[in-house]
């Protein structure tokens, strides 16, 4: 069947069908560069991550930004936010947003100069 699947043909499943038509979840406010990390917790309370959520979980074993997750999965940001919201509700991921300190900015300046 894979011979019928390519980028030209478009997705087999419409993106919002992946999330049961929902457009809102607790992941709504996730900033584009918030860092997502898998907690490694075992799923509880009967929640079973869908295939896309499994992909996310394997992607974020090291901290990955929301924008990178969306780009990697090639799904619209709105869909990814809902998927992440579910995972967050079940404590399967943690989301961090460290702010820039003076030390970090100096490191960035030196890093950019060295590019």
């Amino acid at each position, binding site marked *: 069947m894979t011979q019928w699947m390519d980028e030209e043909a478009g997705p087999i499943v419409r*993106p919002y069908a992946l999330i049961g038509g929902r457009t809102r979840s607790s992941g709504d406010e996730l*900033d*584009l*560069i*918030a*860092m997502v*990390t898998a907690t490694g917790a075992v799923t509880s309370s009967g929640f079973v991550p869908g295939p896309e959520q499994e992909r996310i979980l394997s992607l974020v074993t090291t*901290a990955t*930004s929301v*924008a*990178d997750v*969306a*780009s990697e999965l*090639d*799904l*619209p*940001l*709105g*869909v990814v936010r809902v998927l992440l919201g579910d995972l967050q509700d079940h404590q399967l991921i943690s989301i*961090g*947003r*460290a*702010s*820039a300190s*003076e*030390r*970090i*900015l*100096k*490191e*960035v*300046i030196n*890093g*950019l*100069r060295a*590019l």
Partner: protein
Amino acid sequence: MDFGPSDEPVALKILIAGGFGVGKTTLVGAISEIRPLRTEEVLSDRGIGIDDVEGVEGKTTTTVAMDFGRITIREGLVVYLFGTPGQERFWFMWDELSYGALGAVVLADTRRLTDCFPSIDYFEQRGTPFIVAVNCFDGAEQYEAEDVRVALDLDPDVPVLLCDVRRRASAKNVLVTLVEHSLKVLTASQR
């Protein structure tokens, strides 16, 4: 200083703004790894007459494709570059993009200087640190950075520099100037 792996990963966001065709994508491409991003947004009535929704009148969202750039400074420290959408009808995306941004580069073209007025107004009002980078197009008359500052009526603290966004070294210089400016603003606010 401790740069060990125990450090929390940090991501920083820099915005690249300016009028249509001023070189935002070129700047991002000159200095970073480009990644595609799909975002689905609500069609506002501003899209009427622009988006062809004939036959799909029930359509209320549209897919907006955008790119972003990524520069890895080291493991656990990444700088993201987001170009702000040029078309007026995507203004609603600016608030999301500029939330928590470290700063913004406003690209200007001296042949169409007024194109960058909306960006400058926006960042001034929001209090986002920004610099103005004048992209020197071939064939455009060359001006001094100070002439541009006067023409744009900029605050004396706002850095203005000339650049050629196609050149990596120049793009690098633009970003360094911005981060230095943001650092200055941050330090001043902590005093």
